[in-house]
Structure formats: structure tokens, C-alpha cells
């Protein structure tokens, strides 16, 4: 019996991947544990082993093929005593995703990855949030030799989530620095380096691990300017993925937006799209203050248009109206926008015209934009992934009550994650997370529908 070799799932958030390289060819004998291929996931390039003994009967997806969905058949392994792939097996195979072979993401030279078809729109290119973040760091590092990147697996591993891919090659080990697993320590070293006049970018593999370092972030980075009567600036960026990924349980799935946003002395940024990720990260790196830059693992692989101009930046502290509307204001940030925008789209079909505000920066928050919108729509729903108690939405509700109470036609509703540690079981996790349906229900409620 021939064995179908399927595209493997190699990370919790992987939905599809690229066959970077085949290490076997048709007719090769393989033993269990032999490497068949290198597969590029949303996070890394991983070697994929055979678990069976046999002969490679057919390679169905050539190397360089991108967007191969999990569980798609990529090769056929014949039993050691078989000689060719039976016809009926061949017929079963239909793969639609094989496209022109293309080199992997260019290392350190993001401009090189611009595709020819996009030259018809010279002002923007489509890139992932992941590439946008890397490009932002690379461009700023080229411009300022005092900027360095430090964190776990940022250099030789090319980033646990591939954000720093190619940076080591371009900027050397002096400026792209792998640390031991020691968040408290390297956060403090980063703060000291900033006091010493450098501009560190400190990557946390995820913000869950930054809990080990939160004393250095809050007590040392955020407060020293004040405690020194304005003498000691701390130009530092703490960045990494924040919030829930997928099926990683309670200790790896928490949104820290509200935590950091409550601290004077910190700036807090949480972008949704590639252009904002790039423009805001560049602003964060240039900012003379400590900036918490909250990314999202699920968004890393999403693509958006980004201006090609290297001088493109997005100022910290300005919200963005993602969709204009007159009936209700939906305020969100980061991954919350996914639900907010989807809800707005579906609501428009039932005649509800939503205005969607992307805060982009949580501290300092652009509450003016919210208030102006609420004065127009008279209704507001906030959307975030974090816990409901002392949430960003709670703060927004309070600001609206104080500044636009007379304009409200309904109480503000906060859509949040549920008030539970994130469960592991798929069904429970789904219930704990925010959904588009909940946003729709909330909007209908403030519309009294």
C-alpha cells in the first residue's frame, strides 16, 4: 500500500506552508527519521521527517511551492516492495496551489521582494505584518548605528516567529544579539543600555514571558525620567506578540494591553495592519521614551498594502478611522479589528452603518477621535481580546460618560474575552475568545434592535 505524505502542521497557528526544499527525489529509499523536506511555516523553516520506511514514489508538490494547505498530499511513499504509484492513487491527487517557484524572503533587503505585477501601483506593496515589522527595524537600524535588537532566538534562529529574519546577516552579531532565557535580566540590561545612550529594541518571545521582566519595564524604564527630574531618558522598545495564539493554554494566551496602558511613562502601541505595524514601529524606535509594542501572532501572516517610501511613518497617539459610518461607533485595536471589521461588514447587510475606529496607540489614547465619533453616532461598542475587568473598554466607557454623556442614546457595551484563564480544549477556548457574533449582538443591543 502506498502511503500518502501530507503537508504537516508544524506550529499552533500554521494553516499553510511552503515546501522550501526536497531532500529526497523520486526513487530514493527512505528510513523512519530520514529528512524528507524542509518546510517553511509561518514561524520557521522546519525539517520534516519520514515516519515510514519506503521508496519515494512521487513528489507531487515541487520545491518552492507556497500556500500548501495542511493535510494536502505532497508526496507518495511506496512500500519497500512496491515499484510504482498505482493509477487510482494518482487520480486522487489534485493540487491547485503550486505556483511559480520563487526565492524565499530576501534576507535584509526587503525591497528586493517587490513583485513585478505590483509595479503598476508604485506607491504601495503588499506585505505581511511580519515583513513590515522586520522592514521597520532594518530601515531604522540602517539609519542609526545605536539601535540594536536583543532577545531570545532573534539572531541565529532568525526569530522565534521569524520577525528578525535576515537581520543578523545584515547587521552582525554586534547589533542582533541572542540572549539566554533570562527576561528579567536582559530587560534590565536593555534599560541600562538605553540610559547609556543606545536605542535598544528588546524582543520578548511573547509578552507572557515579559511578566518576568515587568519590574524593569515599569519601575526602571517608565519611572526614571520622572524620578530624575527629567535627566534620564530611556529610549527603548519592548516588542513581541501579545494575546492569545491558538491552543496554547492559559499561561501563553493573555492580552496585556490594559496592564501596560495604566502606567504613566510608557507609551503603548498595538497595530492591526502591515502599514501601521511598520509606520508605528519606526516611530516607536525613534521615540525617546519607552514604548511597549504589542504585536499579535495570528496577524503576523496577514497581508496588507504598505507604502514603499522608506520615509513612511505613522505617528504614535493617532487613531485611524477604518470605516466611516453614522449609526454606531465600534472602537477596537490590534486583533480586535478583525472582529470589528467583520461585524461592521455583516451589519451593513442589515442596514446598520458602523464607524470603526482603530486606536492603534493605547497610550496616549486618541480619545478625541472616539468622542467626535460618538457625538455623531450616539452609540458605542468597544472590542478587545483582554479580560473584562479593568479593560481598555472600561476606560473608554468612562471617558465617553464624562465627555459625551448627553450624546449617548444607549449604554456603552464592552466586548472582551471572557473572565477565565484561557482553556486548552478547542471548544472551551472558542467560547473564551471574542467572536464576531458577540460584536454583532452588542451593536444590535446598543441600536435597540
Amino acid at each position: 500500500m502506498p502511503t500518502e505524505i501530507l503537508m504537516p502542521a508544524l506550529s499552533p497557528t500554521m494553516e499553510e506552508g511552503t515546501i522550501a526544499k526536497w531532500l529526497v527525489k523520486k526513487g530514493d529509499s527512505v528510513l523512519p527519521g530520514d529528512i524528507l523536506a524542509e518546510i517553511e511555516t509561518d514561524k520557521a523553516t522546519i525539517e520534516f521527517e519520514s515516519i515510514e520506511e519506503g521508496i519515494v514514489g512521487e513528489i507531487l508538490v515541487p520545491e518552492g511551492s507556497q500556500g500548501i494547505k495542511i493535510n494536502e498530499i505532497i508526496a507518495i511513499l511506496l512500500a519497500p516492495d512496491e515499484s510504482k504509484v498505482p493509477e487510482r492513487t494518482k487520480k486522487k491527487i489534485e493540487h491547485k496551489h503550486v505556483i511559480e517557484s520563487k526565492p524565499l524572503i530576501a534576507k535584509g533587503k526587503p525591497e528586493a521582494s517587490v513583485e513585478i505585477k505590483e509595479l503598476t501601483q508604485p506607491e504601495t506593496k503588499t506585505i505581511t505584518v511580519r515583513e513590515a515589522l522586520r522592514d521597520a527595524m532594518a530601515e531604522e537600524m540602517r539609519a542609526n548605528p545605536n539601535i540594536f535588537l536583543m532577545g531570545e532566538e532573534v539572531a541565529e534562529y532568525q526569530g522565534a516567529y521569524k520577525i528578525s529574519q535576515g537581520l543578523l546577516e545584515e547587521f552582525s552579531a554586534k547589533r542582533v544579539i541572542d540572549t539566554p532565557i533570562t527576561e528579567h535580566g536582559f530587560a534590565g540590561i536593555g534599560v541600562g543600555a538605553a540610559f547609556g545612550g543606545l536605542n535598544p529594541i528588546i524582543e520578548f518571545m511573547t509578552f507572557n514571558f515579559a511578566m518576568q521582566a515587568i519590574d524593569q519595564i515599569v519601575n526602571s524604564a517608565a519611572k526614571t525620567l520622572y524620578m530624575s527630574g527629567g535627566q534620564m531618558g530611556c529610549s527603548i522598545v519592548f516588542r513581541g506578540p501579545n494575546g492569545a495564539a491558538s491552543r496554547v493554554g492559559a499561561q501563553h494566551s493573555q492580552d496585556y494591553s490594559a496592564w501596560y496602558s495604566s502606567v504613566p511613562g510608557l507609551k503603548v502601541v498595538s497595530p492591526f495592519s502591515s502599514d501601521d505595524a511598520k509606520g508605528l514601529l519606526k516611530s516607536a524606535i525613534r521615540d525617546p521614551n519607552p514604548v511597549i509594542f504589542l504585536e499579535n501572532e495570528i496577524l503576523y501572516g496577514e497581508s496588507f498594502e504598505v507604502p514603499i517610501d522608506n520615509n513612511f511613518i505613522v505617528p504614535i497617539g493617532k487613531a485611524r478611522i477604518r470605516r466611516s459610518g453614522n449609526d454606531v461607533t465600534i472602537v477596537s485595536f490590534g486583533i480586535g479589528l478583525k472582529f470589528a471589521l467583520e461585524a461592521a461588514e455583516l451589519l451593513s447587510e442589515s442596514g446598520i452603518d458602523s464607524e470603526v475606529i482603530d486606536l492603534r496607540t493605547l497610550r496616549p489614547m486618541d480619545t478625541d477621535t472616539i468622542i467626535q465619533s460618538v457625538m455623531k453616532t450616539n452609540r458605542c461598542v468597544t472590542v478587545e481580546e483582554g479580560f473584562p475587568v479593568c479593560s481598555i473598554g472600561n476606560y473608554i466607557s468612562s471617558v465617553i460618560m464624562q465627555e459625551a454623556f448627553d450624546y449617548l442614546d444607549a449604554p456603552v457595551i464592552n466586548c472582551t474575552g471572557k473572565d477565565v484563564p484561557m482553556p486548552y480544549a478547542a471548544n472551551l477556548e472558542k467560547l473564551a475568545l471574542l467572536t464576531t457574533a458577540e460584536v454583532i449582538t452588542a451593536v444590535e443591543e446598543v441600536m435597540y434592535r
Partner: protein
Amino acid sequence: MPKKKMPIAKLQKYYKDMLLIRRFEEKAGQLYGMGLIGGFCHLYIGQEAVVVGLEAAAIKGDKRITSYRDHGHMLACGMEAKGVMAELAGRGDGYSKGKGGSMHMFSKEKNFFGGHGIVGAQVPIGAGLAFSDKYKGTKSVTFTYFGDGAANQGQVYETYNMAMLWKLPVIFIIENNQYAMGTSVDRSTKSHSLWERGLAYGIKGEEVDGMDVLKVKDAGDRATAHCRKGNGPYILEIKTYRYRGHSMSDPARYRTREEVQKVRSERDPIENLRDILLTEKHLSEQEIKKIDVEIKDIVNDAAEFAKASPEPSVNELFTDIYLEV
């Protein structure tokens, strides 16, 4: 005392610097009692030789950072007694405009990076300052001070590991005054040689008699030479003693009056240096007296300055939270 000849001007300077710290701290204690200084106030009395000896080993460009027991470090690196005292009193002319207080003072000009209130937090920051010097290619070193209490914090060892891994020019100075607040070293660890813990990370170090300013200076010279040669960090465990309580509100019931008295009478760093200056006839009784008066005047002036300085303007409440972009 080490045998080698020390120029008289230097001995005199060490004496003056130590005496300034002693008298300043006594005055601070007095002002605290009068309600002019609030909150926590940790006095350095008894430990003066540590910071004066190490400052004698420092050169221009070197940086220093310490814990909340920081008044002595500031005076020793050349910060003005007036500005420090005004800060203790929470006045607008203080080094932090009155917004930092006893535990949180800084001077960019003197390369003094605080004054940190969280036990042990200054240790990675000190290594980070050293990182910045290595990155820029200077020959400067960072003196990173912490106590025997902080020596049990995890981040100290995280920092040892990275400092040695990256060969950072940082001197870790454990000011072992034998009491972490009220807990003696005996009651907090079974590994009594604190500097030896660095050996596990490959960091060299030594124990130093912290009641003898010249021995401290010699150790400082060895440590700075080691760091400036690019060998990475060095640890000095300096055995010292604090005469006063942990802070002003500490009744110090964890040790006997006799224990304190014995150290004061037998090992006091200032008295010992004064004896040397007199017996070796470097200075006359009269000259010593003149120095005492001079120091007393500086401290009294500082106290008067602090009292006369206005509280910070209410407009300062919302300044210095962010730097302008």
C-alpha cells in the same frame, strides 16, 4: 595598611571625602528627626571607605549605579551636598527637582545613574550601562553596587551570566554590611562567601576589608585594570558595617549595641585614617581640626540650602513623564 607610599594629598582627600559622608549623613538623620526629610532614608554611616576607596580607582567616563542607600555614592562622585540634601528634603533645588527623594537621585553630568529603590534592580541596569560602553568601544567601566541582601536576588545571577558571556566591563560590588534590613547573612544563606558565587559563571573576584579605604582602593585598581583589559566583569565583596538601622524607622533589635560599639571603636575607617595621618605626622592636630570645620560648614550650608529651597512648583506634577518627540 598596604606598604606602598600613598601621596599625602590623596590620603587627605580620602579623609575629607569620608568625613563629608559621615557628617552629611548625621545631618540627614537630624533633619529626618525634625520632619524635614520624609519617607525612607537609609544612612551610609560606617560604610564610607567602600565608596571613597572605589571612587579613587575611577577615571573620567566611568559610570556608577547603586541601590537606595545612595547618599554616600553621590557625594563621593562629586555631586553637590546642597543638591543632595535639597532632594532629601523634597525641594525644587534637589537633583531630581524634589520628585525622586532619597532613593531616586541621578546626575547625568557625574555619570551617576541612581539611586534604585527595588532591591537588585540596579544590577542588570549597571551591566546595561557597561554594555553601552562596550558597544561604543570606550574604555570606561561601570561600578555596580549592591548589598548582601540583593545578592540573593535572581536577576543578579541572570546578569552575572550575561556579563561574563559578553565580557562586559562591569565591576559588581557587594557591599556586605552583614544585614539585609534585619536579616543577618547567617540567616539568609549557607554560602557565606558571596563573591565566590561568581566563580560558577567564570567571574573572578575577591573579598576586601571595607573598613580600610586604602585596601578598598587597591582592590578597585585591580578590578578596573581587569575590566579595562577586556576581560569582562569582576566581583568585589567588600566587608563593611552599617552603624545605623536599615532605615530611620529601624529599631535594630536584631543586633546588640555592643556589637555596633565594638566595630565603631576598633575598625572605624575614618578614625583609623585619622590616626595614620597624625601618627605618621602627615597632618597636625590643628590641620585635622581645620578639615573638620571645613566639612561641618559644607554640611551646614547644605542643610540651610535645603531648608531655604522652595518646594517644587505645582506645575512640576505633570512634567518629566515623557520626553518630547
